[in-house]
């Protein structure tokens, strides 16, 4: 056994190898992008980028001046996706300016893939058919590991590093070891992927992923739909992993084939993009049947406990929003709790659908009406209050949210206390006016 230190200072243990070693899914994806047969954990390799995504906040307002200063142009416009989601709808002069820069730059550059006020980038990107298994992608946002749900190696980078990608089409990575989160058994009704993530964040901490590759696997994960898988991959950021991968399967293939612009999976993709049976991984086992709804207390996503530890904690604001927790399936989960009921007096329930597609599907299947009749107010499909951008939450209030982060001041006011939970738990808490186990309401 040899020890490899990742250069950011978290220890990694690696089995010693000879010749070509069995490869994890992460290694296979990196090897493909680096033009290699295989790669070894710990080595630093240069990868070709299949797709680079950025938004109004991290993208044009930062990239345009740097590109001009450098006198350089975009390496391949067809591989770039721009999503306006952080400062839309524009509130105030600063927001107007930022969004105007993004729109003007998109026009000047004649970018082919621009989604303006269509929803949150991590949800819009796959819904518009830009992701498929085997891709190597970067995003100008920390929740970019969401793409891992589709078997793509996708991670977040800052704007200057994005400049490097946009100019060269390449980026370096230190090949990570793979931490496998193996879940078995059936989740109880009212318990979902968000609860799985809050449990893992509580156990491993916010840097427990040590910027390695996490792979979610096991019968529980295989039985999840794509929206729930996206929640797992999305919150890999809260585990401090570089990526959160899920091996593509029939569920992935079917989801991609049913898009407005269907993505056809090559026939062999499901066999190729798997971790080899004898590859070296660090495995952790979880029993889904024992999982209770989880709530993360202020001010860390890793501060999670079973919901019954919070009994009767009062709630003034309930928020179903963000890339993490406002997809169609998340809204459906909230609606299943609230059907035929009305939220408690003094509680504000806000729903910001993750994309316009999810909003229109929620309207078509009655989810929207159920939530509206229960007393929900609908907000624009953008990042909004999750990060204190639009509709920031003011004052010394308790908020329960389906979002991914509850750092102090994150939703706009350092005095507010944000509790993180699943859409089931957020809806049940809105119904009663205090933190509530959704299983009590559903049964």
């Amino acid at each position, binding site marked *: 056994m040899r020890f490899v*230190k*990742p*250069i*950011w*200072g*978290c220890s990694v243990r690696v089995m010693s190898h000879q010749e070509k070693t069995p490869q994890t899914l992460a290694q296979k994806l990196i090897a493909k992008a680096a033009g290699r047969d295989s790669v070894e954990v710990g080595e*630093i390799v240069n990868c070709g980028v299949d797709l680079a995504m950025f938004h109004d*906040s*991290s993208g044009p307002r930062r990239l345009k001046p*740097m590109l001009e*200063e*450098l*006198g*350089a142009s975009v390496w391949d416009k067809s591989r770039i996706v721009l999503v306006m989601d952080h*400062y839309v709808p524009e509130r*105030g002069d*600063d*927001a107007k300016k*930022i969004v105007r820069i993004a729109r003007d730059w998109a026009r000047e550059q004649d970018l082919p893939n621009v989604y303006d006020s269509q929803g949150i980038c991590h949800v819009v990107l796959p819904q518009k058919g830009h992701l498929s298994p085997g891709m190597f992608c970067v*995003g*100008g*946002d*920390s929740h*970019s590991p969401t793409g891992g749900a589709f078997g793509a190696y996708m*991670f*977040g*980078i*800052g*704007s*200057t*590093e994005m*400049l*490097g990608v946009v*100019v060269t089409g390449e980026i*370096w990575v230190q090949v990570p070891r793979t931490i496998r989160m193996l879940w078995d058994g059936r989740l109880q009704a009212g318990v979902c992927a968000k609860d799985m993530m809050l449990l893992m964040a509580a156990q491993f*901490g*916010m*840097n427990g992923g*040590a*910027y390695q590759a996490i792979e979610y696997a096991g019968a529980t994960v295989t039985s999840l739909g794509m929206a729930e898988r996206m929640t797992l991959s999305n919150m890999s950021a809260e585990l*401090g992993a*570089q990526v959160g991968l899920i091996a593509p399967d029939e569920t992935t293939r079917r989801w991609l084939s049913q898009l407005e612009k269907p993505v056809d999976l090559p026939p062999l993709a499901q066999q190729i993009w798997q971790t080899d049976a004898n590859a070296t991984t660090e495995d952790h086992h979880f029993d889904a049947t024992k999982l209770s709804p989880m709530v993360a207390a202020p001010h*860390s996503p890793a501060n999670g406990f079973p919901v019954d530890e919070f009994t009767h904690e009062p709630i003034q604001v309930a928020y179903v929003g963000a890339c993490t927790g406002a997809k169609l399936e998340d809204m459906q989960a909230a609606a299943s709790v609230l059907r035929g009921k009305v939220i408690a007096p003094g509680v504000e329930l806000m729903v910001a659908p993750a994309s316009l597609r999810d909003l229109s599907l929620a309207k078509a299947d009655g989810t929207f009406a159920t939530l509206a009749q229960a007393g929900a107010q609908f907000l624009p499909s953008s990042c909004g209050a999750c*990060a*204190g*951008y639009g509709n*920031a939450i003011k004052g010394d209030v308790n908020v329960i949210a389906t979002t991914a*982060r509850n*750092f*102090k*001041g*994150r939703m*706009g006011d*350092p005095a507010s206390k944000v509790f993180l939970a699943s859409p089931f738990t957020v809806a049940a808490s809105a119904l009663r006016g205090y933190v509530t186990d959704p299983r009590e309401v559903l049964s």
Partner: protein
Amino acid sequence: MSADARTVTGAVWRVGANIDTDALAPGHAMSKGLEVVAQHCLEAIRPDFSSGVRQGDYLVSGPAFGIGSSREQAASALVALGVSAVIAPSFSGLYFRNAFNVGLLLVTCSRAEELVDADQLTLHLAPASGVTLTSARLGELPCAPIPDFLIHRVLVGGLLNELKQRKSRENHG
């Protein structure tokens, strides 16, 4: 913009573990320019930091410095405030990449938490020999090695300058 060696002496500003990017670059300041973000840097944790820190000083923290968002203003705010390096037992990997890209040196040091406010530190950084960190009180401290290409990147002031150099070499080569 040469990649010459650098030696800086400064005082320690000590913070705890798990310093997140919302603390370094608060969301409410993100629509403003870097100067404003820098003024609000760490306001929720050390309100005395942004007004009191001096050119060359060091930010020293517990493990998992820089967790959270990809916003690189969380690193460039420290460059703007004149911080010469962040010293911690471990960093968020995403923050680690961003810092070197904007020219901020991060030093992984297992003994970082032994340092206290106002300790005097001297750091020597050179392309060939890497990082040497000496505390006036504790003597030389162990530092994890940093790959040469990242030392070079921080010495030229970040990735943008590196790309400029590469471009000018191509134009003249």
